[in-house]
């Protein structure tokens, strides 16, 4: 009696992907209702995820955009402050930390303070470390902070940690807190603490040197502007005067390019004009005129907003030209609009050391829960579908389908559902989030739409949809693959 396995399975075929795919497509289109349940689950989960992510992306991008615009609107103020402000040691550290990645700005600072670029760079790096740890200790939860550094805050923390026994205790406590991550390796902090005295001294030196330069600059400029405030003077000065003013400033080491100068001057002109108009509007005789014309005396802000109005034009027309009034009213409106937007937008942290968080813990939790629920839903729907199709699966196995083929077929089916559900969910989510943000912030959202990021988000969500569907189908697909072929004989 023969006992050998004289069967050769090497010519057993693995079905091509294309054939398996066609197989599944037919199946899905036929069992549309059952598939649509799985689809709906994917759609809801993916849409939810997309809303959270794309809304966060849009708010961030809008926030950055609006703050940028705000920065440009305030460019004149910030430039003048940059030129004449005298920093405290703490502010200077924060400012230098922010300059760390901007070599041109560091070079300018070095020139103004009269030190070498290398020293300024080194100082900026140390300031960055200081700011990093200040931020770290500030954002630590109160309980942990008390354990690590007692009640010390700000720079006193570093002083406290400089003590030998305190440092040792700090290292031990830190090792115990597994959830706390230092922003840099521990040695960086140690080195910083070791060099702290020297660092503070050189920061002080640089600060004083800079203050001297600024004072000297002010004296030089006073010769040109007299007693007038720089902003007011620049707002009314002739082009030649402004050019001269800029020459004096750049001679002190400041980097003030002509384009920036032109922008500043333009803004300062409008501001000067606004000041004149405001003064004029608030004069007693004008108050009376307003009262006669409008039966009421509006506040200054309303008056400025009404500058383009016809009624007001009649009142103001002779004193200020239409262009002048329009320029003032437009700028006033724009700044007011920006200020409103900034109020509505989430705060963008601008410490220069910590990027703002993309998604907060609560949202992360919601997303994970929604994915879990989605996967349970898909698994359930798939299991039901497999139970319903036991005869079909068993028959296929009788006809020679391998376990691998059945597995592959169900995974492909899941992937198809993932693609369709993911795409639909992504589109729905995108629409919802855009409409929602648009209602909240208006046109600013569309102006600052983060196209590339949204595209990446869209692709990622579809991929997530596919992964979710496939992951959730692994168990049902294996159950189907292991089904006994003799079930095909079963009669209900």
């Amino acid at each position, binding site marked *: 009696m023969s006992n050998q396995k004289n069967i050769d399975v090497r010519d057993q075929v693995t079905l091509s992907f294309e054939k398996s795919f066609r197989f599944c497509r037919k199946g899905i289109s036929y069992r549309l209702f059952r598939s649509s349940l799985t689809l709906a689950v994917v759609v809801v989960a993916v849409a939810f995820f997309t809303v959270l992510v794309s809304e966060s992306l849009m708010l961030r991008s809008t926030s950055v955009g609006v703050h940028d615009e705000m920065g440009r609107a305030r460019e004149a103020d910030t430039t003048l402050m940059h030129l004449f402000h005298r920093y405290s040691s703490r502010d200077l550290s924060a400012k230098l930390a922010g300059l760390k990645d901007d070599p041109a700005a560091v070079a300018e600072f070095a020139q103004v303070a009269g030190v070498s670029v290398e020293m300024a760079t080194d100082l900026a790096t140390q300031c960055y470390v200081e700011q990093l740890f200040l931020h770290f200790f500030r954002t630590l939860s109160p309980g942990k902070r008390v354990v690590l550094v007692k009640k010390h805050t700000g720079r006193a923390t570093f002083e406290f940690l400089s003590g030998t026994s305190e440092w040792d205790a700090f290292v031990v406590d830190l090792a115990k807190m597994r959830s706390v991550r230092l922003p840099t390796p521990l040695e960086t902090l140690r080195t910083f603490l070791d060099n702290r005295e020297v660092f503070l001294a050189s920061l002080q030196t640089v600060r004083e040197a800079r203050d001297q330069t600024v004072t000297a600059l002010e004296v030089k400029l006073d010769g040109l502007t007299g007693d007038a405030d720089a902003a007011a003077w620049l707002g009314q000065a002739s082009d030649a005067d402004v050019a001269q003013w800029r020459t004096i400033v750049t001679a002190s080491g400041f980097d003030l390019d002509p384009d920036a100068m032109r922008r500043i001057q333009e803004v300062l002109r409008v501001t000067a004009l606004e000041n004149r108009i405001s003064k004029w509007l608030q004069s007693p005789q004008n108050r009376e005129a307003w009262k006669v014309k409008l039966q009421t005396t509006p506040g200054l802000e309303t008056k400025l907003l009404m500058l383009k109005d016809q009624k007001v034009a009649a009142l103001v027309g002779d004193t200020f030209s239409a262009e002048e009034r329009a320029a003032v009213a437009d700028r006033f409106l724009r700044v007011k609009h920006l200020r409103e937007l900034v109020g509505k937008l989430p705060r963008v942290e601008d410490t220069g050391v910590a990027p703002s968080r993309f998604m907060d813990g609560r949202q992360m939790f919601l997303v994970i829960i929604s994915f879990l629920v989605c996967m349970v839903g898909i698994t359930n729907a798939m299991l039901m579908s497999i139970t319903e199709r036991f005869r079909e699966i068993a028959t296929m196995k009788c006809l020679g389908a391998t*376990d691998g083929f059945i597995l592959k077929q169900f995974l492909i089916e899941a992937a198809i559902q993932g693609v369709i559900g993911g795409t639909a969910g992504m589109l729905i989510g995108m629409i919802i989030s855009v409409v929602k943000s648009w209602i909240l912030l208006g046109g600013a959202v569309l102006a600052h739409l983060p196209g590339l990021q949204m595209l990446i988000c869209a692709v990622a969500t579809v991929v997530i949809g596919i992964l979710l569907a496939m992951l959730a189908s692994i168990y049902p697909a294996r159950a189907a693959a292991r089904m006994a072929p003799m079930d095909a*004989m079963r009669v209900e």
Partner: protein
Amino acid sequence: MPFDAKTYATDKEVVVRAVGVQKHFTRGTETVKALRGIDLCIYRGEYVCVMGPSGSGKSTFFNMVGGLDSPTSGRVFMDAVDMAQLNANELAFLRCRKVGYVFQSYNLNSVMTALDNVTLPMVFAGKHSDDARERGMQLLERVGLGERWNHRPKEMSGGQQQRVAIARSLANAPSLLLCDEPTANLDIKTGKEIHHLLDTLNKEDGVTIICATHDYNMLAVCDRIVWIADGNVDRIELSEDLEITKASLGEEHE
């Protein structure tokens, strides 16, 4: 005349040989002995009916022969291959090429057309799709459904569906056709047509058929009848020994 395997088997080729096949199922603490040691040979070109009351182990024996289940002890050889030693993939291979199945409830894939259903086993066997279609059409014509190749199972009657199923089971020219009560869901007239079809396939094309049935009409066309009771082969009869067979055979051929 009692059945004598030795005289019957002279110079006949064995397709399936079952040796001491036992199958035990464990239900809770209780062990059910579905098969208690069956020895049986099935020869090429034979038409065997397996009869027996429900619960006799008939279906279990069927599963063993078809490579759907493996015995607890004993061996089943299919074309001299011991099926108990095959792994899942090898069994799938064997089911694909060596055995054709005809089910009581047809088990056609309802999404596919008749032709697609017939070509399915050939797809699993890796046949080129043009060849598969050609053979599929031939088979459909053989069972008398050449015109209806593009119909789906829902658009066909039970008898027609069973014909498609028979065509499907023949797709890879199997050594053995395994029919599990093929006429149980059909009325008497259509049942007879199916009997006739199976008989023609057996007599003209030399297809080996094992058929489990309760249908006495079936006995008329087969060569041997294996009676199974209580997990054992009760008796084996040649159909020419049966009185009823001769009578119905006469009717059938009129």
